[in-house]
Structures are given as structure tokens and as C-alpha cells.
């Protein structure tokens, strides 16, 4: 009997931990391919925040790219306060996990395909994305410029 309860306790613990650690995330291609099935459902979506966070009064629009497509996320302004980096050429954006209701054609937002977030968790902080100067490109740029100027001077001399 003691063993049975021990086993039951272990199973329950595993089940709880399983649901917490492995929340099923869906990909953007899955959402787009099966958009009717997901319409109105609570989904968990993960990716990098890119572009601008557009504040609209008490709410905000942000875009999360999972590597394939960037989806629009409509969230309460307070939820996006922790987002410090958004991806562009100079920066890698924060990686977030969004949980919310998926809309194939949102009635509130003119039919846009979006997710209304109920929770946004920062998984990984972004940061600056330095692009060190490429010496190869620098040499090639200077060399080609000198070549063009030399050629132009040569042409002028011949034209005289």
C-alpha cells in the first residue's frame, strides 16, 4: 500500500512538472496551416521580438518571429515592459513565450491574424548584435575606389 501511494505521488509529480516545463508551443507555420482549427483557441507561441513595439494607449502591438514568420501580438502595455531588446540589424531581440488566444481574423483588429496575449514570458534576453568591420570588405572597397579614380584620371589624360 505504501508503495502504491509512493508511485501515485511520483506519477502526479511527474505529470505536474511535465505540464509546467513542456507547455506545447505551436509554430507560425502550424498556426497558418491549421488556422481554422486554432481559431479562438489558447496557444503558446515562442520567438524573437522584432521591429518596433507600438504602444496604443493601454495596449501594445509587438511582432514575434519564430524563424519562419512574424506574427502580431496584441498585449497589455504592462506585459511588454520587460522587453528591452527588439531585433533589427544592430540588435538581437528578446526571446519570449506568448500565451494567448489566436485569431484567424480578429474582429477587434480589422480581420488581422493575431494573438491576444494573456501572458508574455521572457525566455532569453536579447542584446546588441555587433558586426565587426570586415577587413576584406574594407580593403576591397578602398582598392576598388583607388582603381576607379586612377582609371578616371587615365581617361582624362588620354582625352586631352
Amino acid at each position, binding site marked *: 500500500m505504501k508503495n502504491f501511494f509512493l508511485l501515485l505521488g511520483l506519477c502526479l509529480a511527474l505529470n505536474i512538472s511535465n505540464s509546467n516545463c513542456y507547455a506545447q508551443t505551436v509554430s507560425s507555420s502550424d498556426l497558418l496551416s491549421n*488556422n481554422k482549427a486554432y481559431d479562438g483557441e489558447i496557444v503558446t507561441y515562442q520567438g524573437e521580438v522584432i521591429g518596433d513595439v*507600438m*504602444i*496604443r494607449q493601454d495596449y501594445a502591438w509587438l511582432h514575434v518571429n519564430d524563424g519562419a514568420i512574424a506574427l502580431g501580438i496584441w498585449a497589455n502595455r504592462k506585459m511588454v515592459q520587460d522587453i528591452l531588446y527588439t531585433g533589427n*540589424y544592430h540588435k538581437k531581440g528578446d526571446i519570449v513565450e506568448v500565451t494567448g488566444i489566436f485569431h484567424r481574423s480578429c*474582429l477587434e483588429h*480589422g480581420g488581422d491574424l493575431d494573438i491576444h496575449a494573456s501572458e508574455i514570458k521572457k525566455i532569453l534576453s536579447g542584446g546588441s548584435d555587433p558586426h565587426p568591420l570586415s577587413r576584406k570588405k574594407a580593403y576591397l*572597397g578602398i582598392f576598388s575606389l583607388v582603381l576607379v579614380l586612377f*582609371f578616371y584620371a587615365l581617361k582624362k589624360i588620354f582625352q586631352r
Partner: protein
Amino acid sequence: MILKPQINDIKNIGYYLGRIILGIGLTMFLPFIMGIILFREANPALDFLISANIAIFIGVTLSWLCKTNKELHAGPAMVVIALSWLAAMALSAIPLSLSGHYKSFLDACFETMSGFTTTGLTLVQDLDHLSQSHNLWRHLGPFLGGQGIAIIAISFLVKGTSGSLNLYLGEGRDEKLVPNIIHTARFIWAISIVYLILGTILLGLVGISIGLKPQSAFFHGACIFMAGFDTAGFSPQSPNILYYHSLIYEIVIIFFMVIGSFNFNLHYQIWRGNFKEIWKNIETRTLLFVIMIVILITMVGLRQLGVYSDGIILFRKGFFQLISGQTTTGYMTIYAQQFIKEWGELALIGIIISMALGGCACSTAGGIKMLRVGIICKAFRQDVKRIILSPSAIVVQKFHHIRTMFIEDAQVRAVLIVTIGYFFLYGLGTLIGVWLGYPFLEALFESTSAAANVGLSCGITDTSMPAILKITYIIEMWAGRLELMSVFALFGFFVAYLKGK
């Protein structure tokens, strides 16, 4: 007997081609300077410095080696135009290829041809991390190509009115706004630059009001204007216009797409205060009529499948995509996959018809063009009248385009040849698409979008698509933008060189 082109003809082509390549090289200094001063992007700026130097070197060498004072005739001018668009594609692809955001040089060439021809189909990877300098170049392509690559050369780099006129005509334009062709070219630039300034300010302010940061708002404003007014459909962010989630932003874009698809001659009339021309012109009337027909088809298709539950949403989504297709812009407020997954066949047919027919002649729009559609309809009406009325009756048919004109058989013949050429292009891409295993409707959609220089995509255009399809679409975009004649002239020139005596 076919006459073999002489060395002087080839030198003449080389000289003008060199001048145009020089012009393309010089324009690359804009993203180079902006990259250094404004965006602080050293590597992308170097990409443009290298590419500009290569283009200038080729351009100067070609025009120096082929220097001639001979006037450029119509045939060689068309060859110059056809070649210069290929040269522009290849040279402009160098900085994009160096960015590392393209899978291959072919993909970068696809992107630049798509940009210059104001199509808007894209093969860029990870657009959201692309530098602003490269993004500016992507959007500058439609602005230069929309007005016409030859227009740049005519305005600033080419001397001689006759040669300039032939270059202008070779680029698929046959209307002079003012008697002097150089003044016409400069007027086209003046219109475009004034609109660019106003458009950037307007979209920038709207951008700020919807939550974009000021610098980002004006950068987006300039990019979206260039690709919207020039009916290209590129966007600085991957979700395209869906990125902004704003009705007012969409309305402003619709306005610019529509005026971008208007004939430059109509713009000239409006600038002169002749507002009545808008209502009298055969092109605007035909455009309005066609839009009403295709909107009906699309709305019925969407309604039938219950794609959008709300009437206002149905109109907003349907109308935006439709105007984007009709003006051959290609901006989207839905994802490409939604076209096939949700829209259904009838709505797609509506969009395909709008893309195939396109905007107005002598504009930045592509497709068959409203002037041709209008003339074909009038000619059809004239023929029906001839059948109904007495054989001795003289049936004349007039149309108004800047001035009132009579329809002539030779004109109808010319219009029909180009129209059949467009249908051939649409069919060619569809055939190759189907041969490669894509469903018919999707292949037709994408092929029409490429050949009519639209840019709407149902998902076929992707880095993983076969190289042969990428090349097919490049040819379709090129031939579609030049209205086929310059491409025919180029092939004729090669045939004459090989078989001529």
C-alpha cells in the same frame, strides 16, 4: 534579307549602355552615404562602395571604348533598354548578395529585378535583421525602375534629343508630357520627388501616431512610399503592411497606390489644374469599371466561403488586396498562405483578373494596362455596331485620353499584339509552374503576379523554389515591365547578328 548590325551599331549600344550603368553606379552612393552618416552601418556601407565602384568602372569603360557621336535609332535603343535592365539587375544584386541575406546570387538578382520592375516578389532571408542601408536600396530600386532606368540617363547623362526619345519609347512609354523629351523625363522626376517628400512626411506622421519611433516612422514612411507609389510592394519588415495594424495607414497606402498607378500624363494635367481630365479620361473610367467588376467577383467569392464573418472586415481585407492587385503594387494585409488556405477559387480569380489587367499606361504600374483594355472595349463596340447597322453606314468610335481621338485599326492591332504578348507571358509561367508540380491556380496566380509586375504571392515564391522557376519569373518580370517590345528587339538583334548579311 536580314541586315547584320554594323560595328557602329554595336558601339552605339555600348556607349548608351555604359552611360546607364554609370548612372546605376552613382545611385549606389546614396545608401553608401546614408549607411555611414545616418545608419552607422559600416559593413553594409562598404558593400555599396564596392558595388558602386564596379558599376562605375564598367560604365565608364564601356562608354569610353564605344564613344560615338552617332544618334541612337529606335531598334538599337530598344536593345540598349533591354540590356540595361539586365545590367541593372546584376550590378544592383552585388550589394544585396554581399549582405549575406540571400541564399544565392540568383536570389539577389531575383530581388533586384523584382524591385526595378516594381514587382515586389521577394526572396530575402531574415528581412527583420537586414541593415537599413540594404533595405533602403531594396526600396530605391522600385523608385528608380518605376520612373524608368532610361529616364535617369535621359535626365542627367545622355545628350541628344533623338537618342533620348528612342530610349524613352523603348522603356514601354509612348507619351510625351511636354514637347521636349528631356523636359518630360525631368518632369517625371519632379512629380516623383515632390510626391516622395509629401508621402514620407504623411506616412511618417501617421507612423508616429500609431506608435512607431520617429526615426523608424520616417524611414518606414520613405520605404513604404517608394514601394507604394511605384507600385512595388516591398516593405521594411517581414509581415508587410500587416506590421502596422492600422486602418489609417492602410488608407494612406491605398491613396498612394492608386495615384501611383495613374498615367504621368494625367498627373501633368492635374498639375496644370485640368481636374476634369480625371473623369473624362478613358483610363480612369475603365479603371473604375474594372475595379467594380473584380470587387464584385472577389466579395462574392469571400462571402460564399464565409471567410470573414463581419461585413466591414470583408470589405477592408478584400478591398485592400484587390486595389493592391489592380494597381500592381502587391502590398498585403494577410499572409501569403491565407490566399490559398482561405480565400477560395472565385476570390482568387477576381484578384488574378485585376492583376492581369493592371494600372494605367505611362505609369509605374504593370499589367496589360487600362488604356489598352479601354481601346479593346471601344473597338469591340465599334465592330458590334458595324454588324448591326447598315453595311453602307460609316461607324466611327471615339475615346478621350488627354484629347479626343478616333480609334484606328492600326492602333487596335498594336494594342492587341501587346495584350496577346501578356497572355503568352502569363501562360508561360503557369505552364512551367504546373510542370514543376504546383497546382494550376497557384501557378497561374504567381505567374500573373510576376509578369504583370504585381508582387502578390500565394506562397510559391520562396527561396526553396526551383532555380528554373526563379529564372522564369525574372524573365516574366523583365519582359512584362518593358511591355515585351524591347525584349523582342534584343532577340531580333542577336538573330540579325548571327544570320544577317
